[in-house]
């Protein structure tokens, strides 16, 4: 019975090296993302079948639309009123599940002004496909 020869060990070594690099790099970037900027303004995001509503730190409420300022860090507190949804701004790689019974947080800085779609990224029933909104980033 043949046993592993050196080509196989080298191959496994290369594969493992790539995996270690992917793992270490991911760890490092995630570590950076874990720190929320101190001046981040809090936005409460509520998902429910089938629309998003927002509340700014000064009490202003918005439904289906979110108006933010360019360059200002924001921290989203994401909640749900009924089933699991997932708050997603694909252009800014913002993605966090809205789970009833808990509050999840994610932060970002809208660096570019403009209009960006908001969508739901967890199946939530009949109109999941159209649970959309718009992010308006006002330029400074």
């Amino acid at each position: 019975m043949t046993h592993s020869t050196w080509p196989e060990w080298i191959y496994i070594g290369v594969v493992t090296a790539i995996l270690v690099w992917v793992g270490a790099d991911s760890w490092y970037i995630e570590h950076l993302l874990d720190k929320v900027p101190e001046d981040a303004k809090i936005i409460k995001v509520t998902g429910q079948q089938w629309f998003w509503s927002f509340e700014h730190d000064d009490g202003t409420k918005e439904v289906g639309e979110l108006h933010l300022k360019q360059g200002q860090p924001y921290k989203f507190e994401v909640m749900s009123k009924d089933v699991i949804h997932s708050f997603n701004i694909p252009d800014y790689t913002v993605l966090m599940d809205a789970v009833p019974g808990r509050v999840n947080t994610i932060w970002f800085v809208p660096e570019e002004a403009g209009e960006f779609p908001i969508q739901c990224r967890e199946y939530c029933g009949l109109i999941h496909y159209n649970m959309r909104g718009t992010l308006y980033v006002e330029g400074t």
Partner: protein
Amino acid sequence: MVLELAKPRPVWQIMFSTHHTDVALLYLITSVAFLFMGGALALAMRAELFLPGSQIISDSMTFNRIFTVHGTTMIFLFILPFASAIGNYLVPIMVRYKDMAYPKLNAIAFWMIPVGSALIWLGFSDTTWNAYPPYSIIRAPGPAADMWIFGLKIIGVSSILGAVNFIVTILKCKHPDLPLSKMPLLAWSILTSSLIMLVAMPTFAAALLMLLTDRLGVSGFFNPAMGGDPIAYQHLFWFTFHPEVYVMVIPAIGMMYEIIPRFSRKPIFSQGSGIAAFVLLSIVSFASWAHHMYSTGMSFTEKTVFMVGTLAAVPASAMHVFNFLATMWGARIRFAAPMKWAVGGIALFFAAGAGGVLNTAMPLDFITHDSYWVVGHFHLFVFGTIAFGSIGFFYYIFPFVTGRMYNEKLADWHFILAFIGASIVFFTQHLLGLYGMPRRIFDYPAFPEWIAMNQIASIGAMLIGISMVIFLINVIHSSSKGKEANMDDPFGIGGKYYYPHQAKTPHHHSGY
């Protein structure tokens, strides 16, 4: 093994037989029938998604039910029963025993499949095949969702009974002169996948029961209104179903281990490597489940643990790829249909694994989670690897089961169209995911890039559909009217490579 004596047995006697070859045939017919039914649902979805707006499906509720049943069918009614079919047919032969350890239990396990599948298909629930609560508890309409739960429960029991049967047959009924280390790798793949199934499936059985009592309102395990935690379900679900994906892939790789050495006219590069990789994969597969849950609000440490667990399983899969390539290196290969499918399967397996490594990188998950990237990724595994390996093996055992040869030209067309089609659909879906398109959606905004990519994907899917029609014609025609096969060497490989039924003593392991 395949040939009947003078008077063919009546059909009903085959249906209610407990002999392993008959039960295998029943599993085979059932699983292939569901491959086509699930595939039809997939084609309906791709036709619908060709353009924004409603094409052939009138409302989102129907679409949601279609993708739920498509996923459930392909996993529980095609992939797992097909592996059972192959295992049932060949494991007793490979371990030199007269039948499975528990023949009657074997037949019972099969007959649970039609019952469970009837519940699933009649209800046609809309919970998605994961059935995450709270949606599946407080919103999913009945009785469809309840029928789905019962159907899956029955199929789960069937899987566990099958797994027990395989483990006992291989470990206890194996011929005393056959050491485990010389046992064919296909048998090893069935053994390891059955062991995973035995450990992993009961968790999901418990989760299903809890889901049902939650739906009835008598418990609140996953219902926040009653103090429960929906994320608990996800842990229980993925603790079963991440190892479960390995239960699906490992037999397909085992099937490739039958095909590739034989058609390369060379022994497998390293039997020991293959065994080690199967065993390693089974163990490490239990360490990665929560990579499906990165977006639920897990902490940095939790995510890191599961990322490491996921990455740890990759070298084992890589060992299989090396084993195959090293076996084919310098060989005089007979490129009949089974070999084409096996090699195509390896290529797509590699692509699937590479994409998976990107998925598991924590920050990249923010881009890919629940988008079409995931759809493309897992389909490269379930279709590109598992279905390719299964179909290739189907062509391989065709002459042994039927005594006839399939039409090689049609099989070639089947492979070419399926390979091109699969590459088109699933790679395009990776891109769609990067462009942000969520999964499980009936309709999408008219972004030009999304429309173009959806159309390309749908064309690829239609190619697969056409290839499957060719397959059906080939199978039906060749089974009843095909040329008689040369039972000593159906594929004209030549040489001393034994087929399972030819090995005269336990010392000749099947092939190399």
